[in-house]
């Protein structure tokens, strides 16, 4: 009797987590569209000044020329400056402050949260009391004081925003560390002689990243809003344009030339919305509890 030919077995390859997350992200149409829009805004901020080389501080035409007329796509502001150029140049500042402030919140927050969650005990007590102290500070007021005292330079504004918003990241990081440190693979790494540093940053942190990534993406959006708020109040570097500053400087003319305030407002709104949607998509993609299989 001859042995019948067996069908070649099909092996189901498990997907790499990254591939899987990307597949999940792609299912969220709004997030993908927002990501595309965000990419466009970023490119605009980087290459825009080269493609549209008009000085945002130069008075190019009569003040309050409405959008579309006289050859200016977005019109001119109360000093006759080209609004389109201001929006393009302001994008760079807004995005830069958003990203670097978010980066700062992540660095402070992750360090504090990791140390507190890993070492527990007295270290945790002290660090979490400090975190709570920053949490109950009136954020806008505190950062206004910082900027007013130390001058309204971009690094100072970034610092002022970062220092009041890292607490959320710290708390998330700590809670993830508290959960993961009890898992068996951490004990197993310890049993194979891993040092505390290695356990914290090579074993626990990579596994704690998903919620931290989501939170820091959302942080970029709130930092942009924060910066807009500060510059609306005039606490901004007068030598650079930012979206909030355009609104702030034109606010007296809101009834006569509403568009000078509306246009930068829409820019902020669209950008922050896009960031939130991307953050939401990341949350779907990275948070296993929300995954529907």
């Amino acid at each position, binding site marked *: 009797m001859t042995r019948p030919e067996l069908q070649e077995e099909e092996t189901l390859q498990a997907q790499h987590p990254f591939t899987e997350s990307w597949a999940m992200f792609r299912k969220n149409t709004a997030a993908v569209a927002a990501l595309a829009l965000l990419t466009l805004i970023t490119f605009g901020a980087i290459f825009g000044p080269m493609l549209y080389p008009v000085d945002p501080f130069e008075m190019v035409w009569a003040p309050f020329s409405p959008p579309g007329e006289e050859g200016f796509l977005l019109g001119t502001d109360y000093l006759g400056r080209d609004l389109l150029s201001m929006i393009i140049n302001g994008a760079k500042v807004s995005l830069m402050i958003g990203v670097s402030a978010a980066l700062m919140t992540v660095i402070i927050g992750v360090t504090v949260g990791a140390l507190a969650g890993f070492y527990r005990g007295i270290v945790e007590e002290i660090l979490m009391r400090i975190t709570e102290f920053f949490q109950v500070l009136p954020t806008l007021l505190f950062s206004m004081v910082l900027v007013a005292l130390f001058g309204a330079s971009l690094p100072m504004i970034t610092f002022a925003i970062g220092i009041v918003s890292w607490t959320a990241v710290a708390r998330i990081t700590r809670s993830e560390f508290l959960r993961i440190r009890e898992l068996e693979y951490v004990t197993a790494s310890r*049993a194979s002689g891993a040092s505390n540093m290695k356990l914290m940053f090579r074993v626990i942190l990579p596994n704690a990243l998903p919620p931290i990534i989501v939170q820091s993406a959302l942080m970029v959006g709130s930092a942009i809003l924060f910066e807009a708020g500060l510059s609306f109040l005039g606490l901004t570097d007068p030598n650079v344009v930012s979206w909030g500053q355009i609104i702030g400087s034109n606010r007296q003319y809101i009834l006569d030339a509403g568009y000078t305030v509306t246009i930068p407002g829409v820019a902020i709104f669209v950008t922050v919305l896009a960031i939130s949607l991307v953050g939401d998509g990341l949350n779907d993609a990275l948070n296993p509890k929300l995954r529907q299989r």
Partner: protein
Amino acid sequence: MRPLLDVQNLTIELTTRDGVAPVIDDLSFSLNAGETLSFVGESGCGKSMTALALMGLLPANIGRIASGHILFEGEDLVQASDAQLRKIRGNDISMIFQEPMTSLNPVLTIGEQIAEVLRAHQGLSRKAAWNQTIALLDAVRIPNPKGRAGDYPFQMSGGQRQRAMIAMALACAPKILIADEPTTALDVTVQAQIFDLLGDLRKQTGAAIILITHDMGAVAEMAERMIVMYAGRKAELGPVDQIIDHPRHPYTKGLIECVPHIQSEMSTARHDLVEVPGIVPSLREFGKDQCLFASRCRYLSEACLASRPKPQEFANAQSADCWHARDL
């Protein structure tokens, strides 16, 4: 000759809501180089606690070594600093855990995890560590080790992960390998393979093995000596064949009778499996000055409730903590 590992009067206390309970109560044993010693007992008898204590990995703030010594090559691990322990862990003493599914870091490839141990302890270069990793994966019989080294744990089956764990544990040629129920989470067919592998690797490397298991069959096959634990105390200790042949403690007797024998002919003559009635006492009962097995024992007498049994030594190196050991 000095034993490789000498545990003297080890007592471990666990802080619970009801107070402090001695989960390991006055345990002494020794392990010689190249020997396999097996810990047997029901869940909650302190077997895993013993293993964690040897590694210095008792859960912080909950468990602590109240008294006793753990002498590894003459050095007392109870007194050792964190840095000293770290040097020993994974290098001289390493451990395999029960759950291969959860004891590998999910975000690193298994190759990276093994190479990391090698680099930490032996100071190998990235390249040398990687080559050694592949050799190790080959030694634990993972097919296509070169390809599989780049796999993440979730891409492997339970048996393969346990093999990877074994490779990691053996990476630095440890003197002692602690295997905490290495096959409990695996399929029967895979269990046999893992035990085979452990046996072969032991012959090749000469590592002493502490095998913690429920599986009496594995004990009989793998170990030279065994310790039966009950409620944090040693019930019986001695050479495996002799204990299985003639258990001197009623608990050991019960455990051996629990093991089913496969019979080719199913007939009415087949005897029923004997069970040990009752359950392990709760932590509150631990530490009482009486025999803790008394409530489940068919040889119960006044003496058992009056005081904790002293070890009864026998000529064949067997010893049992039971007042009736000589009558059994």
